[in-house]
C-alpha cells in the first residue's frame, strides 16, 4: 500500500514522562495485580474469621507496639518520599541522590522493626489457621517492602554512576516513589485488619 505522509511528529519529545511514560502505566498495572493479591488475602482472613468459633484462635491479642511503630515509620517515610518526587520532577540530581539515600534509610527502618512485629502476634504460622493467615499477610507485605527497598538501593547506586545524567532516570525515580506510596497505603487496611478485627 502506498503511503501518504499526513502528520509530522518530529517535534515530539524523545521519551514520555508522567502519564506519557509506559513504565508509569506498567507500574500502575502491577499495583493493580498486587493490590488484588492483598485484597484476596484480606478476604481469606475475613473468611477464616467467619468460620472460627473465636478470634484470634488460641492466641493472645496482638500487641500494638511494633506494628504501630512500623505504621508510624511508614507514614513518616511519605514525607521524604514526597520530597524525592518533587526533586525528581525538578531533575535536581544532587537532591535526588540525597532523597534516595534518605528513602533507603526510611525504608530499612520499618523492615527492621517488622522482625519484632512478627513476634508480637504470639502465634506461629504452624500453630493454627489464625497464625497461618497472619504470617501470610504480614509476609506478603514484608516481601513488598523488601523488593521496593532493593529497588531503592539499586536506584540510589545508579544515580551515582554516569547513567544518572538522563531524564529517564528521574522517571525511574518517580515510578519508585509511586510504588513506595502503594506499599505504604496498602499497609493501612492490612494494619486495621490485623490489629482491629481480633479486638472486635
Amino acid at each position: 500500500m502506498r503511503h501518504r505522509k499526513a502528520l509530522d511528529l518530529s517535534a515530539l519529545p524523545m521519551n514520555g514522562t508522567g502519564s506519557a511514560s509506559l513504565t508509569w502505566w506498567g507500574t500502575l498495572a502491577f499495583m493493580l495485580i498486587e493490590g488484588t493479591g492483598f485484597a484476596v488475602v484480606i478476604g481469606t482472613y475475613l473468611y477464616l474469621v467467619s468460620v472460627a468459633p473465636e478470634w484470634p484462635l488460641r492466641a493472645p491479642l496482638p500487641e500494638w507496639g511494633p506494628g504501630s511503630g512500623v505504621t508510624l515509620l511508614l507514614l513518616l517515610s511519605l514525607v521524604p518520599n514526597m520530597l524525592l518526587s518533587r526533586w525528581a520532577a525538578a531533575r535536581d540530581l544532587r537532591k535526588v541522590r540525597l532523597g534516595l539515600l534518605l528513602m533507603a534509610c526510611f525504608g530499612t527502618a520499618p523492615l527492621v522493626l517488622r522482625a519484632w512485629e512478627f513476634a508480637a502476634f504470639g502465634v506461629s504460622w504452624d500453630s493454627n489457621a489464625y497464625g497461618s493467615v497472619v504470617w501470610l499477610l504480614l509476609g506478603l507485605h514484608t516481601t513488598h517492602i523488601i523488593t521496593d527497598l532493593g529497588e531503592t538501593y539499586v536506584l540510589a547506586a545508579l544515580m551515582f554512576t554516569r547513567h544518572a545524567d538522563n531524564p529517564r532516570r528521574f522517571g525511574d525515580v518517580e515510578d519508585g516513589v509511586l510504588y513506595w506510596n502503594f506499599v505504604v497505603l496498602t499497609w493501612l487496611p492490612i494494619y486495621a485488619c490485623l490489629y482491629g478485627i481480633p479486638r472486635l
Partner: protein
Amino acid sequence: MNTMPQPDQRDASLEDARLDIMLRQVWDTPRGLWGALATVDHKVIARRYIITAFVFLAFGGVLALLMRWQLARPEGQLLGPDVYNQAFTVHGTSMMFLFAVPVMEAMAVYLVPLMVGTRNIAFPRLNAFSYWMYLVGGILLWGAFIVDLGPDIGWFAYVPLAGPQYGIGKRVDIWAQMITFTEISALAVAVEIVVTVLKQRAPGMSLDRIPLFVWAMLVTSFIVILAMPAVMVASTSLILDRLVGTHFFNPAEGGDVLLWQHLFWFFGHPEVYIIFLPAVGMISAMLPAFVRRPVFGYIPMVLALVGTGILSFGLWVHHMFTTGLPRLGESFFTASSMAIAVPSGIQIFCWLATIWYGRPVYRVPFLFILAFFFTFIIGGMTGVMVASVPLDTQLHDSYFVVAHFHYVLVGGAVFPLLGAVYYWFPKFTGRMMSERIGRWVAGLLFVAFNFTFFPMHLLGLLGMPRRVYTYQTEMAWGGLNLFVSVSAVMLAAGFLLFFLDAIRSARHGEPAGDNPWGAATLEWATSSPPPSYNFARIPLVQSADPLWDAGDELPVTSGLRVDRRELLVTTVGGALPEARESSPRCSLWPLWSAIATTALLMGSIVTPWAVVWGSVPVAIALIGWFWPGGSKEDES
C-alpha cells in the same frame, strides 16, 4: 547508497527502500543462537507461544484419546486408576493452563501491536521472560507426568485430597508450582497488552476506532489481572500447608476446605471468560472480512465485552452449589449466572445482524464461525440449565458437566481459534492454508465434536459420574461410551489434518500478499509476514475501518528516528501523539531471570529455604536486566 544512519536521523526524507534497510538494521533480531535466545520481537515470541501451545494441545489430546480408549468398553484394562487420575488431571491442567489461556494471549501478543499500529509490544523483554516461564511450567508438568509424578487431583485440585494428609509425595506441589509459572507468564502478558492498547495506539485510533479484537483483549487482560492473583494466593497457601505446616485448609486447626473452592473459583470462573472473550474478539475481527461490512452495533459489542468482564466475577459460587452454602447466596449466583447470558446474547444477535445485512463469503474461517454459533449456543443453554440449583444438584460431577464445558470451551474458543489460525496464517507466514483441506477440517471437527460430546449429556443424565476410570457392564453405559470413543478418534483425525495442513502450508502454501481477505484493520496494511519493525511509517488512523476508507493511499506519520528503536506513545482516550518513545533491544537478561526464577520455584518444591537462597540469583538477574546499557534507546 549510504545506509549507515546519522545520529538522530529521521525517516521523513528517506525513500522507502532505504528506510527499510535502516529500520532493519536497528529492529532485526540477529541470526544464530544468541538472537534466538535474546529476541524481544513480539512476533517471534508469539509464534513460539502459539506453536508451544498447540504442542500442548496435541499432548493433551493424546491423553484424551487414552482415556476414551479406556472408557470405550466396561471394565477397560488399558489404564489403571492411578494413571487414569494423572491422565485426566494433566489433560485438564494442560488444556486450561498450557493451551487455552496462553494460546489466546499469544494470538494477542502477535496481533495487538499490529492491529493498533505500533512496532513492538510494551515491555518486550517482559514478554520474552513470560515465554520462558510458560515453557518451563509446561515442561515441569509433562516431565513430572512422564516419570509417574504427574498430579492426580483434578485440574482444580480440591482439598483435602490435595492437602498434606491425602496428597502424599510431590505430585500436588508440582501442580501448584506449575500454576505459579503459568500465572506469572499470563499476568506479564496481560500487563503488556493493557499498556500497549492504552498507550501505543497509532495516532487517531481513539477509543471508538479500536478493533473489537483489541477491545476483547483489553477486557481479557483486566480479567487476568484481577482474577489470577486469587489462584496464586490459593496455590501458595496450598504449598505452605504442604511444605511448612500452615493450616489454611485444615479444619482441625481452624482452616476450611471450602476456602480453597472459593479462592480457586474466584479465579476459575473468570478463567472461562479469559478464554472466551478473546475468541469472540476473533469472531468480530474476522466476520467483517467475510460479509463485507463492519460489525453491526460496535458500541453494544464493546459494552457487552466490558459487561461480561464485570459479571464474570459474580459467578464463581455456581461451581459450589452442592457444597451446602446458604440458600440466599445460591439464588444470587443463579441470577448472576443467568444474567451473563445477556451480554453474550447481545453479541450473538449483533453478529447475526452483521451476517444478515452482509454478503457472506463461505471461506474456511467463516465456516468455523458458523460451527461456533451452533456449538456455543448449545453450551450456553446447558450452562443456563446447570445455573439452576436443583438441576445442578442432580447433574453435578456427572458427564453432563463434562459435555457442557467442552461445548463452551471447544465450541466457544477452539473453533473460533482454528478459524483465526486460518484467517491470520497468511499474515504469520506469508502463505495461505489450503481452502480445500480447510473445509474438510472444519466439517470433520464439527461433526466429530458433536458426535463425541453430545452423547455425554445423555451419559450424565443416565448417572455416569465424571473422573471414573471404568464402569461395570450392568450400568448400561457401554454403547454410548463406545460411540463417544469412536467419534473421539474422528475428532483427533480432524486435528491431525489441521496440523498437517498448517505444517505443509507454512512451506508450500500459496503466497498470500499483504491483505488476502480484503480486511479493514491495520495488521493487513503491512507485508505478510510483517518486517521486524512492523510498519515502515506508523499509520495515521482516520476511521474505524482504516484500510477500507483509505483507498489506495494509507495516511502515515513521519519524523521518527531510524537510528534507534522508536515508536509512538499516544493518549489513552483520543490517541493523540505524546512522545517518540524507544523500545528495548534484544537481551539475554529475561532468559537469565527466568532461569533464576525457575531455580527458586523448583527448589521450593523440595525445601522452603530455596526461596531465601534462590532470591539472590533472581535479584542479580533483575538488576542486570534493568541496569542501563548506554544504548541509543536510553537517550532522552
